[in-house]
C-alpha cells in the first residue's frame, strides 16, 4: 500500500479525527519548544575565563559579633550580683553561674588541647607515607550511575521550569 506523503493536503474530515489532532498538537508543541530553547540560548551569558581557577583563600574567617566570647583574661561574666546579703536569691544564682562558667572554661581549654582519634590516625598515616616516599596517585572517583533510581520523569510543560540553554 502506498504511503500518503506527509505534505499532501488531507481532507478536512480526517483533520477532525482525534489522531490527526494529536499529531498536530505535537507538532505545534515541538515548534514552541524549539522557539523557547532558541530564546533561552540567546539570552544565556557565558564568562570568557570560565576555566580560570580562583586561588584558594589563605584562611577561613568565623565571625563573633559579641564581646561575650572575647575575654582574654578568662573571667566569669555574671550580670546580676548582690553584696552583704541584700538579695539572697541573687547571691546564690551568681555564685552557681560563676562556678558553671569556670567549669565551661576548663573544659574548653582541655578540648582545645585534645586531638580526635581520626585526626590522629590521619597524622600517623601522613608521616608513614612520608617515610616510605610513596607516590600517591590521585584518582577522582568515577561517576557512578545509580541503577536503582527511577528513570527521570518527562518534564511537565509548566512555563516556570528552568530551561537549560543549548551549548
Amino acid at each position, binding site marked *: 500500500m502506498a504511503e500518503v506523503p506527509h505534505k499532501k493536503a488531507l481532507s478536512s474530515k480526517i483533520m477532525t479525527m482525534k489522531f490527526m489532532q494529536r499529531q498536530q498538537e505535537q507538532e505545534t508543541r515541538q515548534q514552541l519548544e524549539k522557539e523557547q530553547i532558541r530564546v533561552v540560548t540567546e539570552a544565556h551569558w557565558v564568562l570568557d575565563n570560565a576555566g580560570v581557577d580562583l586561588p584558594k*583563600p*589563605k*584562611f*577561613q*574567617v*568565623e*565571625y*563573633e*559579633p*559579641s*564581646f*561575650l*566570647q*572575647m*575575654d*582574654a*583574661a578568662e*573571667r*566569669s*561574666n*555574671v*550580670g*546580676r*550580683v*548582690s*553584696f*552583704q*546579703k*541584700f*538579695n539572697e536569691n*541573687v547571691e546564690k*544564682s*551568681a555564685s552557681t*553561674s*560563676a562556678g558553671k562558667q569556670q567549669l565551661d572554661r576548663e573544659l*574548653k*581549654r582541655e578540648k*582545645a588541647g585534645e586531638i580526635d582519634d581520626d585526626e590522629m590516625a590521619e597524622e600517623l598515616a601522613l608521616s608513614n607515607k612520608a617515610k616510605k616516599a610513596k607516590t600517591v596517585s590521585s584518582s577522582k572517583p568515577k561517576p557512578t550511575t545509580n541503577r536503582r533510581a527511577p528513570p527521570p520523569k518527562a518534564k511537565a510543560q509548566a512555563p516556570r521550569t528552568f530551561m537549560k540553554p543549548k551549548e
Partner: protein
Amino acid sequence: MTSITEDLSSSGPKIVLPGDILPGPESGLLDDAPTAPVIKLGPGLQPMDDDTIAAVKAGVLKHAAVGNRWWVESNQRRYVAATGESIIGVVIGKSADYYKLDIGAAQPALLGVLSFEGATKRNKPDHKVGALLYCRVSMANKDMEAELECFNPTTGKADGYGELKAGFVFKTSLGLARRLLDPKTLVLRLLGQHVPFETAVGMNGKVWINSAKPAHTILICNAVKNSEFLGAEECRSMVKSLVEKL
C-alpha cells in the same frame, strides 16, 4: 591604610585605628596570625578583599590563643545588639504577642509575652509600660529588630532575668559596662564591703542599683561613674573618700 610595625612584645598593648591592617607572619609579630586555617574575628575586625584583616574600630588589639580569636577592645556609647548578651530594657509598648523594649540600640527590641520562666497562655506575667526588665538577647542581626528572652535558654529557668523592681538605672559607656561584669573590677567589690546593695549590669550600657537608702544609691552611682578611667589605687582612694562622706 597603614600597616602596624610596632613590636608587640616591647610596648604592651597594641593600639589600632580604623584602617590598620593586621601584620602577616612575614613581620614575625603575631604567631598564628592570618595564615592559620581558621581565624575567629570578634568585634572591630573585618577581612579585606586581598586576604588581609583590617581594624574598623579604634582601640586595643586583643588576642586569645584558645580558638585563635582576635578582636579590638573599643568603647562607644551606642549599643549594637548581639546574641547572648544580657541587657536592661525599658518597656515602651505592649501588644498581644510581645513587649516592645527600648534597649538603647537604634531600634526597639521585642520580647515575647511567653518568654518568661513558667509562662503559659493562661499564666502570663503582666508588665506595665515603663517597667525595667533584665533580659538576654536571643537573636540579633543588623536587618531586624532584636529579640529578647527573660530566661536562661540552657536551663529554662529565670537565673536572674526578669523584672527589676525599685532601684535606679543610669547610663554608662559600653566599655565600662563590660568592665563592671568582670569580677576582677574593683569598684563594685569595694563598695560592697561598705554598703549592702544589689546591682544588675546590662551590656547595653545601663546599670541598675538597688539599696536600702537613697544616700547609698547616690553614692554607688557616683562611684561607678567616676571609676571609668581610674586605676586600681585611685579607685580605692576614690571609694574611700566617698564612703567617708556618708
